[in-house]
C-alpha cells in the first residue's frame, strides 16, 4: 500500500516533465507552418489596402522584420508566459479572447463528453458482451453512422426536429438576448453556466442550460460513436483474457465476469484512448460552434481565418495545442489512479 501510493507523485512529476518537450515540438510545428511558409501575415491581412511603406511599418510594429530565429525565440518566450500574442486588426490579446470565449467552449465540450460517455459506455458494453448478435450489429452501425454523419448536418436535423416539436426551445447561441444583457455583469469565472448560478439568477441559469442542450447533443453524438467502438472492442478483448476464463472456472457467473473482470479491465485502455479524443472533441467543437452560432474559441478561430489574421490564428492554434497537451497529462494521471500497474 505505502509503496504504491508513494510512487504516484513521482510518476506525475515525471509525466509533467515530459510535456515540456512535447509542447516545444508542437509550438515549433505551429511556428514553422505559419511563419516560415511563403508570404507574410501583414500582406495577407491588409496587403490590398495599404501602401508598401505602410505595410513595412505594420511589419515592424508586429516584430515581423526581425530574423526568424529571433521571432521564434520570442514566440517561445511569450508562450512560456502564457502570452499568445495580439490580434492583428484590433490588437486584442489572444488570451483575453480565450478568457472571454473559452468558457463557452469548455461547457460545450464537457457537456458533449458527458453525453457521449452516458450513451457510449453502456452501448459499447452491450455490443461487446453480445458480440455478433443483431443488437451488436445495430450498435456497431450506430457507432459508425454517428461518426460518418457530418456534424453540421446532424445539428441542423436536431434544430428542424426541435422546431417542429417545441418551437420556442432555443436552437441558437448560448443564451437568449435578454439573458445575455443581464449576464454581462457575471464575469466571475467567464463560464456562463457557473456565473449565472453563482449570481443566483435561476431563470438565466435555466436559459443557458437549455441553450446547451442541442449543441452538446450534436457534439456528444459524434463522440459517442467513437466511445461505443472503443468500449466494444476492449470488452471483447478483455473477455478473451486469461483471468476471465479463470474467473469462469471459479464459477463466477457470466454477468459478474463481464461486470467485475472484463468491463473494468476494458476501461483501462479506454481511458487512455478517450483522452486522445480531446483532439477530436476540439475539432468537433469548431464545427458545432459554427453550426449553432456558439460564442466559443472555435468560432473565434473560424472568424479570424475568414479575416486572414495570421497572428490571431497562430495564437489560437497554439492555445489549442497547449490544451491538448495538458489534457493528455490529466488523462495519464487518471489512468495511474485507476490502474495499479501504471505506477511502476
Amino acid at each position, binding site marked *: 500500500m505505502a509503496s504504491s501510493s508513494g510512487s504516484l507523485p513521482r510518476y506525475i512529476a515525471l509525466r509533467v516533465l515530459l510535456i515540456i*518537450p*512535447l509542447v516545444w*515540438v*508542437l509550438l515549433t*510545428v*505551429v511556428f514553422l*507552418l*505559419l511563419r516560415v*511558409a*511563403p*508570404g507574410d501575415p501583414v500582406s*495577407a491581412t491588409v496587403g490590398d489596402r495599404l501602401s508598401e511603406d505602410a505595410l513595412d511599418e505594420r511589419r515592424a510594429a508586429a516584430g515581423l522584420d526581425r530574423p526568424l530565429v529571433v521571432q521564434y525565440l520570442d514566440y517561445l518566450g511569450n508562450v512560456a508566459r502564457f502570452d499568445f500574442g495580439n490580434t492583428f486588426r484590433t490588437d486584442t490579446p489572444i488570451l483575453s479572447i480565450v478568457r472571454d470565449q473559452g468558457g463557452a467552449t469548455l461547457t460545450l465540450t464537457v457537456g458533449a463528453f458527458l453525453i457521449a460517455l452516458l450513451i457510449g459506455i453502456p452501448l459499447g458494453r452491450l455490443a461487446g458482451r453480445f*458480440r*455478433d448478435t*443483431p443488437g*451488436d*450489429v445495430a450498435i*456497431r*452501425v450506430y457507432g*459508425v*453512422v454517428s*461518426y*460518418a*454523419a*457530418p*456534424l*453540421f*448536418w446532424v445539428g*441542423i436535423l436536431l*434544430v*428542424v426536429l426541435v*422546431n417542429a416539436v417545441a418551437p420556442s426551445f432555443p436552437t441558437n447561441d448560448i443564451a437568449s438576448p435578454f439573458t445575455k444583457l443581464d449576464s454581462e455583469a457575471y464575469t466571475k469565472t467567464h463560464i456562463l453556466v457557473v456565473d449565472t448560478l453563482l449570481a443566483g439568477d435561476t431563470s438565466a441559469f435555466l436559459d443557458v442550460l437549455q441553450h446547451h442542450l442541442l449543441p452538446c447533443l450534436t457534439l456528444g453524438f459524434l463522440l459517442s460513436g467513437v466511445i461505443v467502438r472503443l468500449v466494444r*472492442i476492449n470488452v*471483447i478483448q478483455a473477455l*478473451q483474457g486469461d483471468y476471465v476464463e479463470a474467473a469462469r472456472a471459479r464459477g463466477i457467473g457470466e454477468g459478474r465476469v463481464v461486470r467485475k473482470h472484463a468491463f473494468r479491465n476494458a476501461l483501462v485502455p479506454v481511458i487512455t484512448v478517450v483522452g*486522445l479524443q480531446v*483532439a*477530436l472533441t*476540439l*475539432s*468537433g467543437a*469548431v*464545427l458545432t460552434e*459554427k*453550426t449553432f452560432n456558439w460564442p466559443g474559441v472555435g468560432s473565434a*478561430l*473560424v472568424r479570424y*481565418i*475568414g479575416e*486572414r489574421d495570421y497572428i490571431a*490564428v497562430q495564437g489560437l*492554434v497554439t492555445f*489549442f*495545442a497547449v490544451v*491538448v*497537451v495538458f489534457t*493528455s497529462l490529466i488523462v495519464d494521471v487518471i489512468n495511474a489512479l485507476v490502474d495499479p500497474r501504471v505506477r511502476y
Partner: protein
Amino acid sequence: MRGLWRTIWDTKGVARWVLVGGVLVTLVFVAFALLAPWIAPYGFAQNNIDGTKLPKLAEPGSGYLFGTNDQFYDVFSRVVWGSRTALQVIALSVVFAGIIGVPLGLVSGFLGGWVDRLLVFVMDAVYSFPALLLAIVFSFLLNDKVGGGVIPAALSLTAIYIPQYFRVVRNTTVAAREATYVEAARAIGAGPFTIMRKYLFNNVVQSVPVVATLNAADALGTLAALGFLGLGIQPTEAAEWGYDISRGLDDAQSGVWWPAFFPAMAIILLITSLTFVGEGLNETVNPALRRRRHRPFRFPQRDSAQEVSS
C-alpha cells in the same frame, strides 16, 4: 486474393455481410466517380440548358431525381460529380501520406536510436493535435497561395494522416526487426537494404491497407468539414458534398430539405462503407479480432469398433 476471400467467408455471421455490403456500396461510388459524365444528367456547375436556367429549388422527382438547389444546380448531378471529387481527394491524400509516412516509418523503425526517438516524438506530437485544426491551418495557407482546388485540398489532409502510417509501419518494423526470420537473414549475411526491402516491406504493407481505408473514411469527413467552413474546394472548381450541405442548411430549416439531404446521405453512406471495409480488412489481417464461423456438426452414431470389449 482467393485466400483473402476465403477468410472473409469464414468470418462469423453478420460481420461478413457488413464487409460485403461495404465493398458493394464503395464500388457504386467508385462507379459514380469514374462514369460521372455519363451518369450525371448535367455538369457539376451547370445551371442552364442552352441558356435556359434550370428551376430553382425544384422538388425531387419533378423531372430532377433529387431536385435542384438554390444555385439552379441539379442535386443528383452534384452528388454524382461530388463522388468524383471525394474519391480524387481521398485517393490523393492517402497516397501522399502513404508515400511520406511509410518510408519514414520503415527507416525509423529499422534504424532505431535517436533518429527513431526524434521522429516518434514529432509524429506523436502532430498526431495528438486536432486533425481538423491541422487541416484548417494547411488549407488556410494553401488557399492563400494555391487556391481552392482538388490538389490543395488533398495536400491539406495529407499532413493529418502521415503520423498514422508512420506509427503503424514503424511499430510493425520494430516488431519484425526483432523477429527470428530477420535475425536469420542477418546471420546469413543479408545487408540492411536487402533485409528492409525483402523481409520487412512485405510484412509491413499488410497493415497499410487497413490504415489507408480508415483514413480514407476520415479524410472524407474532414474534407466535408473544410467545405462547411468555406476552406475546402471552391464551388467553381468541383462539386463537393460538404459545401453543398452547408449551402443547403438554411433551406433545410425552412423545409426545403433536399439540397442538403442527398449530399449528406452520400457522405454518410460512403464513410460508413469505407469504415466497414477497413474494419473488415483489419479483422482479416488480425485473426485475433476475427470470429470464425462455426459450421454446425452432429456427433455420428458410434460404430461398433469403438465399443469396448474385454
